[in-house]
């Protein structure tokens, strides 16, 4: 593939003995240790995704009242299982793989320590297995949040502590690698944007995982009978310091992957390095105490604290996402226009490499994350509006657009590069692969909308059965059905993804010694007059139109919610 042309000339560099190889597609040097642990962590991640996916369909088919599949005890058990396997295990294992990639390959560096990587991996894996066994034995029906005074078996907490500390150790390996690379001058100047994004994710991850340790350790000692019960409100506050901020880790990792895929699939480069990096810095600086989002209708935390921490000091982390929401599509648009696709506002969209599933998945991820996840998230997380949303399915609808339609889909999309480039196998069933992001993304879109509308009608989240309440009518049932249909599509998309990955790793044709097979799309840099639009700051006309529509949609949704709030009973 021809984007190799823009990479540092291969051949020259520093293969530290046999510890690295040269990538046959990109010419980059790949540390073999890093490669091994990227593989381990990515494979583990996909296994947990599969487990979470099986749980997902069971849950959705239970909440779809017309089907109502599971028994009540198993519903909550599987809900606990789904939350942890998806949000924690799938995401964290994949993120460790992303970190190992970002600190080695782009910096021509080797991974700091295989021993540390082993330790991290072994702790995470044993913790995750421990948690899953305890849940399936029925000894931890406390849901992912395990709010005290609900109490699970001690091994449940110990397992989570192992996963958190194991991840921290992996993050340490990342920082140590960055340090060694800098010290040994494997590169000159500033780290690449993708590594910078990963660095932001890693910094937030440390803060997040420390919250996890602070809350889980006393809960574990309490479950052992060694210490007194921590205060339930304190628990909620610190737990969400873990639970919410880890979402910012996911956002950082996802955005870094957006930049990566934009680059690999269309040759896009950041429209402005300063702006893109500045936005990552905003994430780091303004995410603290976002746990407030989950405590907006809680007792004991005052309005000032809620308002201040809701807006993360003036919403500057939201600003960061809005900036990426512009610069990412703008970079793709500029790259396409430089290749001569200049017709009208959206001519470049038509000629984009849609046949590449990484590209399709990336675009869907940007759109679902931005238009659904972002807009609903900021609105529901507004201090007073939360009154008409807290703990309803609106919340679940929101985060299935962010962490599923956004992060998970981005991770899936990048896998269409990880397997050819790291596992060195070309994908099997290429037609099915092209369909996969649409199935998953489309399904999740329906899941998210179904949940959100049902939630607007008051349907609670985490609720086995809505009939006993006796108040939910046909519309609520219909939207739960929409969620159910979406879930079937999404889970088919998820299973197809797992099948494609496993099938390719086992049976895919090796591409060692030659560039990876392309997807029948124009090669990333073909015909490009790269950089010719660098000084035209208005070239991204389609993106300007798109972001204008976005802002309008945001404002309409936001104020419609204030209107809905104004219609309920006055309360102070």
């Amino acid at each position, binding site marked *: 593939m021809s*984007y190799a042309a*823009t990479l540092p000339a291969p051949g020259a560099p520093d293969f530290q003995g046999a510890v690295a190889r040269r990538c046959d597609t*990109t010419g980059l040097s790949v540390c073999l240790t890093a490669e091994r642990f990227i593989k381990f962590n990515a494979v583990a991640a996909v296994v947990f995704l599969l487990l979470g996916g099986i749980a997902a369909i069971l849950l959705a088919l239970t909440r779809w009242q017309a089907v109502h599949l599971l028994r009540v*005890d198993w519903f*909550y058990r599987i809900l606990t299982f789904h939350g942890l396997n998806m949000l924690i295990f799938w995401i964290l294992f994949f993120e460790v793989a992303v970190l190992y990639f970002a600190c080695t390959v*782009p910096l021509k560096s080797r991974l700091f320590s295989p021993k540390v990587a082993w330790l991290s991996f072994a702790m995470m894996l044993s913790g995750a297995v421990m948690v899953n066994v305890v849940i399936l034995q029925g000894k931890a029906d406390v849901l992912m949040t395990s*709010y005290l*005074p*609900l109490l699970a078996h001690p091994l449940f907490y110990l397992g989570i502590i192992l996963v958190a500390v194991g991840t921290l150790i992996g993050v340490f390996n990342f920082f140590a690698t960055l340090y060694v690379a800098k010290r040994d001058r494997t590169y*000159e*100047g500033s780290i690449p944007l*993708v590594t910078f994004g990963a660095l932001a994710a890693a910094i937030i991850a440390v803060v997040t995982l420390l919250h996890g340790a602070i809350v889980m350790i006393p809960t574990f000692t309490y479950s052992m009978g060694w210490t007194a019960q921590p205060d339930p*409100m304190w628990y909620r506050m610190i737990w969400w310091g873990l639970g919410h901020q880890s979402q910012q880790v996911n956002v950082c990792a996802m955005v870094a992957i957006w*930049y990566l895929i934009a680059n*690999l699939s269309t040759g*896009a480069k*950041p429209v402005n*390095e*300063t*702006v893109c990096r500045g936005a990552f810095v905003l994430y780091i600086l303004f995410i603290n105490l976002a746990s407030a989002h989950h405590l907006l209708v809680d*007792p*004991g*935390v*005052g*309005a000032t604290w*809620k*308002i201040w921490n*809701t*807006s993360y000091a*003036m*919403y500057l982390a939201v*600003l960061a996402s*809005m*900036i990426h929401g*512009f610069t990412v599509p703008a970079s793709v648009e500029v790259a396409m226009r430089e290749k001569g696709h200049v017709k009208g506002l959206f001519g470049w969209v038509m000629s984009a490499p849609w046949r590449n599933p990484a590209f399709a998945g990336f675009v869907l991820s940007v759109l679902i994350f931005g238009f659904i996840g972002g807009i609903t998230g*900021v609105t529901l997380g*507004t*201090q*007073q509006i939360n009154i008409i*949303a807290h*703990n*309803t399915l609106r919340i679940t609808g929101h985060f299935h657009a962010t962490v599923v339609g956004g992060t998970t889909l981005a991770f899936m999309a990048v896998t269409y590069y990880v397997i050819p480039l790291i596992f060195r196998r070309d994908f099997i069933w290429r037609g099915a692969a092209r369909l996969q992001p649409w199935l998953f993304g489309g399904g999740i879109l329906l899941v998210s909308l179904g949940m959100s509308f049902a939630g*607007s*009608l*008051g349907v*609670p989240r*985490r*609720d086995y059965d809505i009939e*006993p309440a*006796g108040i939910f009518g046909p519309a609520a049932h219909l939207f739960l059905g929409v969620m159910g249909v979406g879930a079937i599509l999404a889970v088919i998309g998820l299973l197809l993804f797992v099948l494609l990955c496993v099938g390719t790793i086992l049976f895919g044709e090796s591409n060692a010694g030659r560039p990876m097979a392309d997807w029948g799309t124009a090669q990333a840099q073909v015909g490009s007059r790269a950089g010719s639009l660098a000084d*035209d*700051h*208005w070239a991204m006309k389609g993106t*300007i139109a798109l972001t204008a529509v976005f*802002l309008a949609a945001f404002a309409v949704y936001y104020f419609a919610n204030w209107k809905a709030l*104004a219609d*309920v009973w*006055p*309360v*102070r």
Partner: protein
Amino acid sequence: MSLAIPDRGWYRAPAGAEKLWIGLALIWCFVMSLMMPFWHFRGKQNSRGEAYAVQPAAFMARTEKFVAANKVGERDGMPIVEPAPGGEAYLAARMWSWYPILKLRQGETYRLHLSALDLNHGFSLQPLNMNFQVLPGYDHVLTLTPTSKGEFTIVCNEFCGIGHDKMIGKILVE
């Protein structure tokens, strides 16, 4: 390109459309930040989190006292209790019921004390869709003014064990 080391001197101030977008986004973020304090002072629906420490047993005792003093009827063994207009009302959440049934008057303002006797519960008033968290150890006070009449249902929307979906309460407004 985002995978490569940027050229030296990559610092560039935002310009053109990206500058415009950053400006617009920043203004929007300010608008959203200011909406909350605005609503805090001018809006009618706020969650101030007013709360006092209370032991579950003490809260139950207060609730029982409130029920004994203000009981006006019974439905399926659950007392119906009408607090004085403008007065205090108590609602205890426990696995898996809301105790007692409250009877309120339209247009009057009440101080509604919410607390849990065992686990976290979720106070979700339907079909209005107003939601508040209920914790053991915290007396969560809502200063509430019913503005519509009818029979309202309290759904528990925080997971509280196997009977969670059956934890249903009532507020009647006349």
